[in-house]
């Protein structure tokens, strides 16, 4: 049930979560923590889709499907990114962003 909670409160929570993710994306140097910041960003976007679906268009399920598709894309992105990270670790023995430009030919 959603009585008593205005839509703005949900949106403020997801906005703060999004910008915490952006700040983490800028501040961190390790590739895996950057990936975690991206997961935070995607998760806040998911909350937004579901909230708009629930509050403004409850007769449809569009935001629901977009959120499910975003989860699928996040899973694909995480698996490919982690494969790349493990490969970079094999070559360079660390995974800081500053060293990744050494991979080019």
């Amino acid at each position, binding site marked *: 049930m959603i*009585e008593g909670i205005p839509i703005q409160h949900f949106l403020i929570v997801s906005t*703060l*979560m999004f910008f915490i993710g952006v700040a983490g994306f800028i501040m961190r140097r390790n590739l895996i923590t950057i990936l975690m910041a991206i997961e935070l960003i995607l998760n806040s976007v998911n909350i937004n889709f579901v909230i708009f679906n629930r509050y403004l268009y409850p007769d449809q399920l569009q935001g629901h499907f977009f959120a499910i598709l975003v989860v699928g894309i996040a899973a694909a992105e995480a698996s490919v990114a982690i494969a790349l990270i493990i490969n970079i670790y094999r070559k360079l023995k660390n995974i800081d962003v500053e060293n990744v430009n050494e991979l080019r030919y």
Partner: protein
Amino acid sequence: MSFNVVMFYVFSAIILLFSLLTITSRRILRAAVYLLFVLIATAGVYFLLEYQFMAAVQLTLYAGGIVVLIIFSILLTHHISHLFEKPELTKLLMGTGVAVVGSFLTIYTILTYPFPEIVTTTPLPATMENIGAQLLGVEKNGYALPFELISILLLAAMIGAIVIAKKDKSKNSEI
């Protein structure tokens, strides 16, 4: 104040606190566990909205799948006792500046936008029947094409991840 409202604020507090800890923790395994708490609290928000299927997807795929993947890659690439250096001052200022300015602008926009108070349309319950019929439907409100596209994307990502991460046969690397 009813129980649902209290639960919403509890979940929001958990989400915000642990997302902050995720990006500030100096031990990487703890950061991953804090991310797990954020994702589980998000699933709780979906349960509050009565979207049980979305909450189940969130719990199994995000909290169960992606976090385990991240933790395994941490274990493959880090020493557990490794402690990160503190971020540089310029990066810290840039990150917090972008976050503060951006969230201020966005929250200002949210608070001034006139959202409709009462939506009169009859709500469609998010049951498995409705979700399945629309996700695989080809008529109006059908989502068959994105469904097929995402299956191809997942297949391509799986093959790509295996090809990228497998060892090179020609060179003998020691790891």
